[in-house]
């Protein structure tokens, strides 16, 4: 469904992604793991059109996304849960979700948006409870749920998540990952970027390891979980996994 070939991009003169290739097939859950500064988020920004692609190509359902504006990429069916959630703090929870359906409203599918609102609030009951509260007053976990709910409102065929576990308590992280797994079972194709390597690989079909802008490893999630290099570099030393070890 998504195929990236030899992608290069970056900020100013710095090339943060130095020729990355990957593919996501329909219905798969793919995890990209890597340390801080390895280019994970940059890669996602490029996919969503928030960062200009320098070279290479990004094909989504056989359309080249290169040079496309972020909003037309959303219309193509890619929806992102951005790093650090980035919910719209001055808007109510309800308005945040409605913002997620922005492209739907544009197409005049108001009824569908209302339906989706119900579905998502059934999925996250806490959001229904707090629908009139300002989003900025939610806790971290609730904000993450809101960010996921908002992304789902666009009815994406590919959901892209940027570090959904960031800054959350282990219990909440568990819940978020369970949600992601649930979505996958419902048939949403998911591209997940995570520092919490073990948790991310546990629920994934396949994984990629990104290191200083290059893909250094790829394989099925089971293979990567037992790979010695991955174990040494990401499963033992990553701070995120200290918490994991306790449960």
């Amino acid at each position, binding site marked *: 469904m998504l195929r990236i070939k030899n992608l290069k991009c970056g900020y100013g003169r710095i090339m943060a992604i130095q020729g990355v290739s990957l593919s996501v097939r329909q219905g798969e859950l793919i995890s990209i793991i890597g340390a801080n500064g390895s280019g994970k988020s940059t890669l996602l920004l490029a996919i969503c059109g928030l960062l200009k692609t320098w070279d290479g190509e990004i094909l989504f359902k056989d359309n080249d996304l290169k040079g496309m504006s*972020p909003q037309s990429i959303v219309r193509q069916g890619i929806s992102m849960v951005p790093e650090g959630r*980035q919910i719209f703090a001055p808007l109510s929870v309800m308005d945040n979700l409605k*913002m997620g359906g922005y492209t739907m409203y544009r197409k005049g599918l108001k009824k569908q948006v209302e339906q989706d609102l119900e579905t998502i609030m059934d999925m996250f009951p806490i959001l229904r409870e707090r629908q009139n509260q300002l989003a900025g007053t939610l806790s971290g976990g609730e904000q993450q749920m809101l960010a996921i709910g908002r992304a789902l409102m666009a009815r994406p065929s590919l959901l892209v998540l940027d570090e959904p576990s960031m800054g959350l308590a282990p219990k909440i992280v568990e819940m978020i990952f369970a949600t992601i797994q649930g979505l996958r079972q419902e048939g949403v194709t998911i591209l997940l970027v995570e520092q919490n390597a073990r948790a991310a690989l546990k629920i994934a079909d396949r994984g990629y390891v990104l290191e200083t802008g290059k893909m250094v490893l790829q394989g099925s999630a089971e293979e990567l979980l037992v790979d010695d290099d991955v174990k040494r570099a990401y499963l033992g030393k990553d701070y995120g996994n200290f918490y994991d070890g306790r449960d």
Partner: protein
Amino acid sequence: MAEQKKIFIEHTLFLTIVLLCGLFVKNIYYLQIMTFVGINTMLALGLNMLMGYAGQVSLGHAAFYGIGAYTTAILSTTFGFSPWIALICSVGGAVFVAFVVGLPTLKLSGYYLGMGTLGFGMIVNIVFREWSSMTGGSSGFVGIPMLEAGPILFISGKNYFFLVWTMVFLAIILCRRILSSRMGRALRSIHDGENASMAVGVNTHFLKLQIFMFSAALGAIAGFLYAHFVLFISPESFGFMVSVKMVTMVVIGGMASVWGAILGASLLTLLPEVLHSFAEYEMIIFGLILMIVMIFMPQGLTRGLLDIYEHSRKHVGKIKTGK
């Protein structure tokens, strides 16, 4: 539903106050001041949409105010157009200029956008000053005709007061309609940063451009009302200080609030009049009051007064329940 009821009550209250002021205030001077409040409210409303909701600072908004005023002045006086046609041209001209200027400048953000718009405001002001064959230069433009609609002549006083406040009321309704729509949500969403808005599919650049053009239109209407009210315009009325005053109105009144625009405009228009009695200390006291408001009500008057109200209600409640 509750929301709609609240809005209905607010609007009724607003109209009642305007009506009472218009019918019972006989003093021409007071009516004039209140007309100025209305014109300034129109300015603040437009800037508030841009600054308060979308979070984009403009330090050159007086330019649109001026474009509105000069366009109607030149068209209706020099070329003898009907002022109502001139109004359409004023708004059209300001919107067009906003489009051309906004296309490149709105790619900037924060301080840089402030600087960009500041430069724009200055250029426009220089044009007013130097293009003397058209604008009358720094000595000003005289002989602007009064407005009339059929048998009604809008001379300063009651008629003009009602004209201005009717327009303000229409502008308020328009702003509210925009704010409660899909576009309004998108607008508020870009306040804190644009990336997330882009990620849900908002064309942020175009949206900012649209709202910039909208606020320019309100500015031009205010300019039109000003020109046909005062009947004399000069570049000073649309200079840098006026832009700053507009920003102050929005900030003092309370950003992201339609009523804040009215409060801010009222305070900044009425206060200098009230303070005239202090003669040479006027500006010092004026500055002090603004400082005090900002220190104790950093969110602006609207939020500040609401906080006081809610606080006192809690207090009263406590006394009643005997705690």
